[in-house]
């Protein structure tokens, strides 16, 4: 099961400028683990010590906030797009 994980600019310092990877996983936490294996340091930036996503990190699967889906246990299907987006202020 291959999905695309899009990496935002602030994280590309960790990924040597790579802006997306293909990951083979059927669940969001699995895809993020693959990202962290390839680029150690990702985990600290996305998760707190309890293993939860930082409150200022938003993750979307095909444009849908995973907090409206099943969080880190959100299932992934072939061709899905995972986006990591820091929280932005509004107006």
């Amino acid at each position, binding site marked *: 099961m291959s999905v695309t994980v*899009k990496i*935002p*600019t*602030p*994280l590309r*310092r960790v990924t040597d400028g790579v*802006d997306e990877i293909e990951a083979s996983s059927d669940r969001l936490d699995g895809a993020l683990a693959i990202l962290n294996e390839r680029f150690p340091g990702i985990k*600290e*930036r*996305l998760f707190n010590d309890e293993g939860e996503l*930082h*409150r*200022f*990190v*938003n993750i*979307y699967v095909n*444009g849908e*906030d995973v*907090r*409206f889906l099943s969080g880190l246990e959100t299932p992934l299907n072939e061709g899905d797009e995972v*986006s990591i*987006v*820091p*929280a*932005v*202020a*509004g*107006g």
Partner: protein
Amino acid sequence: MPYTTALRCKECSRESELLPVNVCDFCFGPLEVQYDYDAIARVMSRESIKNGPPSMWRYAELLPADPENRVDINAGLTPLIKADRLGKALGLNELYLKNDCVNPTYSFKDRVVSVAATAARDFGFDTLACASTGNLAGSVAAHAARAGIRCYVFIPADLELGKVVGAAIYGPTLVAVNGSYDDVNRLCSEIADRYGWAFVNINVRPYYSEGSKTLGYEAAEQLGWRAPDHAIVPAASGSMFTKIWKGLNELHDIGIISKPNTKMHIAQAEGSSPIVSAYDAGIKDIRPVRPDTVAKSLAIGNPADGYYALKVIEDSEGTGHAVNDEEIVDSMKLLAQTEGIFAETAGGVTIGVLRKLAAKGLIGKDEVTVAYITGNGLKTQEAVQDVAQTVNINASLRDFEDAIKAEDA
């Protein structure tokens, strides 16, 4: 020159260089501008402020952009009005309204955008952009026009016509996105990654958000150099709420007012109240919601500064309340019909929550209270269209007198 020293992460406190970035390199947390307050305290005084320009730029030392280079359409220094008629209706003797409806593009957004556009110019950007629920769109487009730089504005496709026209007139490229504001924001984060543009609420956000502090400075100055006992502030992302509190505290830090004892009350619309829901539940973990409210300018389901807003409520011993669509519309009418101020739906949220606070006895009748009215009602006329009831007559005096008798009966 600005008195800024660094950007500091609000989470891990690491400092970084003053660049157009909004996220900490180390922990991904949001960044905030730091200042040399000792130096500011040496040059800033009540007198120096009074002698400054009649706009928000009279507080330039406390803003993170070069005032000599400012993009200025004369935002700020809006009236603080003693609201005797509304106060009487609510049993409050010391009620004031900060009327930010009368900014150049008719909302408080001119404050943040003036700083953001100036910072963008300081950094050498040639394009100003934003994701917007409407008010920001108009303000960004106007400031870009004033600065003579390119402008891209991204809005949800279902926005009120008045707000679309109010941005389009300044000539930006206006992109209507099928989806909610949160969808537009997510898209813009990705666009900001790819294009070297100054997105006022993304990569320029640490500078942008500081502009809201002037709402705190001005209220204190206009009250005769004191902080109010209560402030009622409408919230979407929660940014302005936190910055008004920060502004009041900064004035104290540099020795201009005594320590603020302001209770900060946050006002949200029931259909989009993730901050108030967390406050009611006694937690700091914001659960995002899908907004459904007449107050579209507050329809942000995923508030970036929600956590920090909850901290301000706690630190200031304030509260949070939400009002429904009916209460919002009713409060817009009450405000207009007691004080002559036609506020947009967000103003209805503020006044609706003010009424709740007064009814619950949470505001003492002689306590100095400032309610923030942050946008103009002409932008959201759809919400109160039912007021347009006319008395129709022919052009004859008899018709008129008959009609008036019927009205009075």
